[in-house]
């Protein structure tokens, strides 16, 4: 029997009530799905290389100028953000989900702030967040201008 009061996946995107980590979880899952769907499209897209130079170049131009609008760089930038987020957050999760870089069990004290989300885990979030911004800036500048900083 279905649970009557089940909150469903829509509750993942509750941005304020539960703090930052649950938001990261929702974004990790969302970006994962986006990358997965992109891989399928990418495999299809790159298989065009077998169909000769004319087809390939036409496909590339179409993806850069879909429907006559220069939209390609925006898509690539969004994709880069998605990939960098998933990669760096995934790196953090690989560490903390295997019980590394976490606090030892402690005695809870009022007002009961959870320490598992603080400490090294929090430091990782900050460091990887800065790294994400740096990589994204490099990438987006390259995508739009072709300048390698």
């Amino acid at each position, binding site marked *: 029997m279905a649970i009557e009061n089940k909150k469903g996946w829509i509750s993942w995107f509750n941005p304020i009530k539960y703090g930052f*980590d649950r938001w990261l*979880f929702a974004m990790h899952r969302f970006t994962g799905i986006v990358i997965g769907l992109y891989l399928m499209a990418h495999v299809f897209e790159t298989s065009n290389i077998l169909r000769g130079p004319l087809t390939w170049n036409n496909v590339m131009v179409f993806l850069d100028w879909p429907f006559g609008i220069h939209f390609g760089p925006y898509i690539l930038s969004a994709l880069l953000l998605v990939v960098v987020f998933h990669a760096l957050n995934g790196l953090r999760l690989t560490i903390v989900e295997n019980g590394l870089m976490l606090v030892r069990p402690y005695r809870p004290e009022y007002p009961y702030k959870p320490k*598992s989300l603080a400490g090294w885990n929090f430091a990782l979030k900050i460091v990887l967040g800065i790294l994400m911004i740096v990589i994204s800036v490099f990438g987006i500048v390259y995508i739009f201008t072709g300048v390698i900083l």
Partner: protein
Amino acid sequence: MELVLKGFGEVVKTVTFRVRRYDPEKKEMPKYMEYKVPVQRGMTVLDGVLYIKEHLDPSLAARYSCRMGICGSCAMIINGKERLACQTQILELNKDLIKVDPLGNYDTVKDLVPDLNKLFKNHESVKPYIVREEAEPYGEYIQLPEEREKYALFTECIMCGACLSACPTMATDDLYLGPQALAQAYRYIADSRDAGFNERLNLLDSKHGVWRCHFAGACSEVCPKGVDPALAIQLLRGVLSKNVFIKYKQNPAKLGPERASIKEVL
């Protein structure tokens, strides 16, 4: 001499309670009803709910017992977040509208009463007791204070069920064990007196076991006792992922001297 408490018993302001009303026996959709509640200083949300029950609408159902954050009966979603109603001051919320919902991800018995059967079943399934091979002992197992510190945090659980309501995996996956059960599993695995790791392994390592946690941290965020179930689950996962390479060995504590008094009772 008469002691006068300043502002005691005065009505400070009137807030609106928006309460989710639902009775599964009547074939009606859940609906929200609003009640105006005069608030005195020191009044908790549970007091507000009881005021409604006494003065405005006796048909409102809520579960409570100790009114002091020990029993874990009155967990509700108050203004979108899971809290113990008896530990939440209305004036501290600082809102004129207070939304009160029963815990999510459970069946509702009536109004604000969630059906916690799932929580208790999952808790029972991870064997929340010390598992030993030998027969009933007539003494204590010897444990050092440092060994107790490894799990002392997770013994604070009062089984209010707030973590299962906040958990994003639980929001879709009914078969998931849930933060409470997994934290208790780790509490017993980390206990130096326990020898039941292999008995619990099959359940914990199953498709809806410990690996369905994605460290969203919401369970720790809402826990009214600061148990930090998320920490327990990650540590448990550390044990399980090491167990893939090197089989995890428990060294169950030795039995202390036999006590005649225990023998007499048994």
